[in-house]
């Protein structure tokens, strides 16, 4: 079984996000890019599944400009076997991403797609589910545990009421939650090896996918600033303030 792991490049989560002058996007000059943390968890899990003998190959796919190659190389340095870079300079929404990944999936024989439950930039939480629907396969989203047996996968999902376990036939799409694993760091030998691993490059046009967005950002604005309040010196002062000032007791 081959595992396909889509990875998205996002601004580092410690970056202070600034909106551009026109309010149409965020300032990306000089930004530090990372692999979306949830996708990194997906790469880690795919490597573990391969190393346990359940899969033969881990293929990472990224969509975006030339320098997205850096994030694909990082995933290969962690241990993914090869990369596919679908090049575009256009903005890609969740729907567009799901159609590119669908096209890549159909070019080979994959048994599983593992990816992050959401990207920490757009926070849309859609692409895995859209992909599963396009492929006509089941999905296990927000998973914190994955076990294979008898051509099926049993996953534990982090849901609002607690932990839900479901069993799915393969192929399927799984999206990762935070507690699935702790991704390894890329080692120096890993980084050296990654440079030699194969990377296919193609354009969105090569795949015949139309990226016209279904959801368009009209305008970005900063959230209303919350005024810092004040420090209180004691429990008594706090309780009095909550009771008499804030009137929440």
């Amino acid at each position, binding site marked *: 079984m081959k595992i396909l792991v889509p990875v998205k490049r996002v601004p580092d*989560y410690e970056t202070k*996000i600034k*909106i551009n002058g026109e309010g149409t996007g*965020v300032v990306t000059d000089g930004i530090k890019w990372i692999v979306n943390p*949830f996708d990194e968890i997906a790469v880690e899990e795919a490597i573990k599944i391969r190393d346990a003998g359940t899969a033969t190959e881990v293929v990472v796919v990224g969509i975006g400009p030339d320098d997205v190659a850096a994030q694909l190389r990082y995933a290969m340095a962690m241990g993914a076997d090869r990369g596919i870079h679908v090049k575009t300079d256009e903005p890609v929404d969740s*729907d567009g991403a799901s159609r590119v990944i669908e096209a890549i999936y159909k070019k080979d024989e994959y048994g599983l797609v593992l990816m992050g439950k959401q990207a*920490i*930039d757009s*926070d*849309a*939480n859609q*692409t895995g*589910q*859209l992909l599963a*629907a396009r492929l006509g*396969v*089941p*999905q296990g989203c*927000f998973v*914190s545990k994955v076990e294979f047996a008898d051509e099926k996968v*049993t996953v534990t*999902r*982090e*849901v*609002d*009421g*607690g*932990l*839900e*376990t*479901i*069993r799915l*036939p393969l192929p399927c799409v799984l999206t990762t*939650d*935070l*507690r699935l694993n702790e991704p390894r760091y890329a080692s120096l030998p890993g980084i050296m090896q990654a440079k030699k691993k194969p990377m296919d490059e193609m354009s969105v046009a090569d795949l015949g996918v139309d990226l016209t967005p*279904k*959801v*368009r*950002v*009209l*305008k*970005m*604005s*900063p*959230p209303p600033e*919350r005024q*810092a*309040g*004040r*420090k*209180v010196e004691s*429990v008594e002062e*706090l*309780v009095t*303030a*909550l*009771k008499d000032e804030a009137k*929440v*007791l």
Partner: protein
Amino acid sequence: MSDILVFLEQTDGSLPKASLTTAEAARQIKEAHGAGNLHALCLGKGSAKAAEAALSYGFATVYYSEDGAFDNYLAMAYAAAFEKALSESGASIGVAPATTTGKDFFPRVAAATAAGQASDIIAVNSDKSFRRPMFAGDVLADVEVTTDKKLITVRPTAFGEIAAAGGGGKTQELTGVSVPENAGEFVNLEESGGDRPELTAADVVISGGRALQSAENFEKYIYPLADVLNAAVGASRAAVDSGYAPNDWQVGQTGKVVAPELYIAIGISGAIQHLAGMKDSKVIVAINKDPDAPIFDLADYGLVADLYDVLPQLTEAIKSAKG
């Protein structure tokens, strides 16, 4: 003239707050559109009763199905049911709460109906433009869904509850939903449960962070305070990762988003991912040993203190203040 179909979560025949606030967002979309009807869909055991209850909010048709296929949640089954109800109602806008259920199955409906989806909206600008947070809430984006069919998931804490509005609607059993054979099977649900109010619906939330050091300390220090305030208990990601609190207590960008009247953060430093989940709370209190903790930058009241010293005092003082 678009009709709108709302997915209403229900538990044993009753509609939780998240369903009523989601319905309010749908009503605002209808108002912005200026025409059309609101319809709803309830699924699972008790959905016939929930559908009856929903009629008092002005829905024209409330579809329901107690078919065994919906006893337990599976994405493919719920998506198939929503698609069927969309086509029966003729609605071109679908709305669901951005709970783990709505987040999970709604994009499948989007793919099947060639709809664009706006996720986790916090405001309705028009019948096609919506406001939603991005970058952990550092950005509020007004987004336009450009397709004819539109799907919207709603942040349940961002809207008030829908008001009762004259009846006149009807309930209708949804039949003939075909669930794909590869939908998978439900195994079990391990509920973290308890008698406390639900996190996203509670008026008061007390959250603990890594400084609590253990699940026992949550019990010993956080629970008594929560009891006095009839509060829900939340946790930072660090506390959940360390096993001090169950996963569904996590407040933050990727966990639950809360906006209670009073939020008390105990031993939480205030990572941006956490702040994204609670900064719309009305009054924020922070108790932390570190005077430079970022949580103090947005707390209305900050107390620099050791939680182990002050929490028992605070619990007692609030108990007497509430008389």
